[in-house]
């Protein structure tokens, strides 16, 4: 993995997550917006080596925490979920977009609820859990998968470290 490129990609996604640019495609008073970082988490957890996937999951969780108001909940939840997904690479067939959407939707529902719970535990701020927003965000995140996943598939060779002994993109002709 080319870590510098990956960190740049993560920072760009977290700026989008924290900023207002996504409000242009948001619904429900701007509260229901997709989470690009969460799609990145599922994609890289399922499409990279397990060792790298563990580090990537915690890094993406940390980035999600930075973009939000509380540090810690996403790092823990996303790290655990990403590592579990990495162990299930052989079991989950995510070649078809329907499966990709299903996995992202399930991950979004679980992770958004769990990290909200941990955030409430940390800040001790009681408040009603807006289920409508959580469900809306999870479904919207799953809805952008058909657009984002192929883009990430194209981006993956750039992020992958070249194999030693092979030149990047230049193939020698047969002698």
């Amino acid at each position, binding site marked *: *993995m*080319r*870590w*510098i490129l990956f960190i740049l990609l993560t*920072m760009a996604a*977290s*700026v989008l997550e*924290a*900023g*207002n*640019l*996504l*409000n*242009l495609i*948001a619904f*429900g*008073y*701007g*509260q229901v*917006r997709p989470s690009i970082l969460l799609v990145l988490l599922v994609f890289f957890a399922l499409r990279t080596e*397990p*060792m790298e996937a*563990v*580090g990537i999951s*915690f890094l993406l*969780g*940390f980035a999600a*925490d*930075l*973009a*939000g*108001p*509380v*540090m*810690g*909940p996403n*790092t*823990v939840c996303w*790290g*655990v979920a990403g*590592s579990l997904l*990495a162990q299930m690479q052989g079991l989950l067939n995510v070649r078809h977009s329907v499966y990709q959407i299903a996995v992202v939707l399930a991950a979004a529902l679980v992770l*958004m609820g769990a990290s*909200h719970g*941990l955030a409430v535990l*940390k*800040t001790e*701020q*009681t*408040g*009603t*859990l*807006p289920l*409508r*927003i*959580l469900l809306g*965000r999870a479904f919207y995140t799953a809805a952008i998968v058909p657009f984002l996943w192929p883009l990430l598939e194209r981006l993956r060779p750039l992020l992958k*470290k070249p194999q030693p002994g092979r030149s990047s993109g230049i193939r020698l002709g047969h002698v």
Partner: protein
Amino acid sequence: MPLTDAYDMSIRKIHLSPGLLFVALLLAGLILLWLPQQLTCRLNFLFVRVFEPFLRLGRVVEAQRVQQIAGAGGQTIDAAEYERLWKAYQNLSAQYQTLHQEYETLARFRKEVPLPWAGLVLAEVCSSVRGVRQELIINKGADHGLAAGQMVLSEKGDCVLGVVQEVSSRLSRVRLLTDPSMTLEVRIRRQGAEREYAGRMLGDGKNGCRIPLLPRDYDIRQGDVVYAAPQPGILEAPLVVGQCVQVQPDEEHPLLWDITVRPAADAYTQKVVAVIVPPLSSLEKK
């Protein structure tokens, strides 16, 4: 040697297995979770400070879109002017009643005149958070006299938008009235009526607020004005918060009102906000 190669080499040297890496990172995450919020929120503020231009860019685009939509209809300017005048009138009315009560008290007793508001600190909105939480991040912090708990008003200082939640040296996080974890002591008063009712207003997590647990024998109607209750050192006179848009019996407790309040201003369209800060003399004492 490139940085990534050095990283890989170091991992090979340490012989990190996926399990060990997972445990180490999980421990780091748990430590981050257990650290006090006052400490870890500095990281969030650092992120906002570093990427402020990019975060602000999104806000500018959104504000332009709102302005374009507003400019499309000819009635919008009049409506905004009406809103401004309505808030000013309601504030004057509330201040008049408070002053009148004070006058009546002063007529009987000599007392020290309370200190007026020390002043307002104007702050630009860097970013806004919409979602499970509803917050604004503003570009003034502890260095400018801001502290948690202070009231945040609209640019003209004519209505309450929220309360300062966390501060760093140069940035602050403002929890809006509509945030689901927001609670605010309020007074409900009708134009021309002498009696006012105290209540606790909660954010509904959408674009409004609720005032639960008020008995049905309270004479509260649609259109009654909701004010933030005065708090010593924070808010010396009542200030408009919003208006009751729906007053109906609570479904679970039919003897209580369930009141829906529409905030007087949309916090997300504000470019600049004002924060009420305590008197300079008390800051110097601190």
